[in-house]
């Protein structure tokens, strides 16, 4: 071969080796990751209910309103309550509601959060025990993700494992595995993971971070392969240079 061609071949070979190396690291990376079959943002929910049946005489909040603990939400006129108050069976103040002597029940928010799921309107009758609205606790957002794993891969799930959350607008939030529940179907571990993240602030990303938003979650498994060190090193390198 001519020297020029030898040089070309050499450069080409270096290129091919580099390409295969990068591809192998990517492949290995993928081997140590698993994408969710389904995932969505969830929040800790606190139902607002009434202990006494009666007529809703005032609705003080709208769907989506932010409320703070103790803020009045509904007032309910209840004859039963009026009777109980008259007989001195109930105290006038409670964490969830306050009662006036004339039998008007004021339901208050028990925690800070956002109002969702209002089921009733002013003037309607509510039963005792009925839930009138739900409060999503502020700062309690988490991701619930379903993964279908082989038993080997299930064994590679580590507590606190990093999870990459991708919002519908492709924004990425990193989180960590909190708890895992599993059921086995056809020998596959159908895992439901609860992922917590400090990046899940209510209303962030133009309102995308909200309960119910579909997301994609990628769970990192413990890397047992021979390229584990290489893969981590490469990953670390990418992070160092800011990719």
């Amino acid at each position, binding site marked *: *071969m001519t020297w020029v061609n030898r040089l070309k*071949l050499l450069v*080409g*070979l270096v290129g*091919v080796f580099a390409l295969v190396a990068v*591809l192998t690291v*990517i*492949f290995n990376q*993928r*081997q140590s990751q698993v994408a969710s079959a389904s995932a969505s943002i969830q929040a800790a929910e606190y139902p607002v209910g009434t202990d006494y049946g009666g007529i809703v005489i005032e609705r003080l909040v709208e769907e989506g309103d932010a409320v703070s603990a103790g803020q009045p939400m509904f007032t309910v006129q209840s004859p039963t309550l009026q009777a109980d108050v008259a007989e001195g069976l109930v105290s006038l103040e409670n964490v969830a509601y306050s009662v006036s002597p004339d039998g008007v029940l004021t339901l208050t928010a028990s925690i800070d959060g956002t109002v969702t799921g209002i089921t009733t309107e002013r003037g309607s009758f509510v039963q005792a025990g009925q839930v009138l609205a739900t409060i999503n606790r502020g700062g309690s957002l988490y991701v619930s993700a379903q993964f279908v794993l082989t038993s080997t891969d299930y064994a590679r799930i580590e507590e606190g494992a990093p999870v990459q959350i991708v919002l519908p607008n492709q924004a990425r939030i990193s989180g960590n595995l909190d708890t895992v529940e599993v059921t086995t179907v056809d020998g596959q571990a159908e895992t439901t993971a609860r992922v917590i993240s400090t990046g899940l602030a209510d209303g962030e990303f133009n309102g995308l971070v909200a309960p119910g938003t579909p997301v994609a979650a990628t769970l990192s498994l413990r890397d047992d392969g021979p390229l584990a060190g290489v893969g981590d090193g490469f990953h670390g390198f990418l992070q160092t240079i800011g990719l």
Partner: protein
Amino acid sequence: MTTLHPRPDEPAILQGIPPHRDRGPTALVRPARAGHDHAPSLVLLVVVATIGILAYANFLLNPASRGDWLPYTLVIVAESMLIFQALLSMWTILSGSQDPRDFAFHQARATLFATRSNPRGIGSPGSDRRPLYLNGQPTSVDVFITTYGEGLDVIRETVTAALAIRGAHLTWVLDDGRSDEVRDLAAELGSRYLRRLSSGGAKAGNVNHALTASTGEYFVIFDADFVPAPDFLVETLPFFVDDKVAFVQTPQAYSNLHNVISRGAGYMQAVFYRFIQPGRNRFNAAFCVGTNVIFRRDAINDVGGMYTDSKSEDVWTSLKLHERGWKTIFIPLVLATGHAPDTVEAYTKQQLRWATGGFEILLNSNPLSPRRRLTFDQRLQYLVTASFYLTGVAPLLLLAVPPLEIYFDLRPMNLSINLATWLLYYAGFYLMQVGLAFYTMGSFRWETLMLAAASFPIYLAALVNVVIGKEQQWRATGNKSQVTSPFNFMIPQLLVFVFLLLTSVVAVWRDIGIGTATLATAWNVTNTVILGSFIGAALHESRQTRLSFAAERGRRHPRPVDARHSEAVTA
């Protein structure tokens, strides 16, 4: 079934035709028919293969079997090209059942040597240089042998055989190599010798230059390594009794099928010359391949000489002739035997030249364009010719599919398709094609498949060259003082081979990790082996070249074969 009909005393094979002997003048025997009805089993096989192709196409295009878009697109694009070519070539094969020789031909052939004193044209010993008559008029024929630095022994054999062709003719050596040795050789053998001052227009320019010096009504072109049979004119000239016939093309057959490259290349062309070209007669789209062809001078004058603006002057000249309404004829009768490219370099250059010609027509002169004055049949056939080399690029796309699955888990087909289903459809296409080849050619040569799979860089280079309008430059060869390695011409193949090999290793490692063997691994290993065998052939060639070069240096007397080797190669 159309076959290459041998003369009665010669075996009917394209490969390994024995050297033509001068059998002495005899009365003209009736020629074997060039085409007759296809054997019913061939028709059946073609129909079954067509059904197989359609089923496979249906399977691929079924939305339910679609996988990830990237590999799926690669597969669809590649397979579409293959399927299109396969369908149209089978159609062409089935069309080739007609013998181009009509009554007028036989009449002209019988009276080729007829004179008033010898009305039946019966030959007598030593009467080989009798004048030729067509329609009762004496005709004149020039035989051009184009040379460009070929070995003296090769030229000597060709010129000797050309001089011995039956019927009066003038033999010219058109030397673009400007070799005084060739000039002396021509003088020694008694042929005319022509050398021009420029070398513009390559071979076409050379022939055009010769046409200004010669006066023959018809002219024959032989490449320097194609040894004609004595009956060349007897079998071809009578066609010109039809005033519309511009040229008669005969096959290129090869005598040197001694290694993997030459067998692969030779066999590839055998299919073309035995089945495709005869079928093209029906479309009036048989095209010239530059050698072993006899032209009517008036026809070439009509299109302003041989086409000089392309390295594929042969196809372009045919196209111009067809546009002017000329008729062309191909006969599947071997009348000249040459050398198939037997080195990677020769093969690469030949394929690059041909593919460039095909792509030039496709991109610069679309045969479907209304500006071309062609019949619909001719448009179709030129489209097939022009797009044929796209199938050469298809293997590259298919080679990329298994690595995509191995590295990225991207699958061309839906996961729910099981292996048996896939195998069934796949076999419906490919096994039927192999079966067809086996039936028609009597054998299936793996070398052809291997070469076809390993040649994609050549066709890709041709495509890129045509698109960006670049002329491929090779380092000057013909330097006999240096040994050339075939690897100079196969760097892309080497790199792809290394890539596939490493990918195979990763794939096996991956399969061990997963615990099951995958189809992707099987394919990738197969592809690696196929490319590997090409590299192996090149290694073998490289070793042979080095050995023969050493031997040559020792003796200072190159044998003909060695001379070809060392001339075709460079450090």
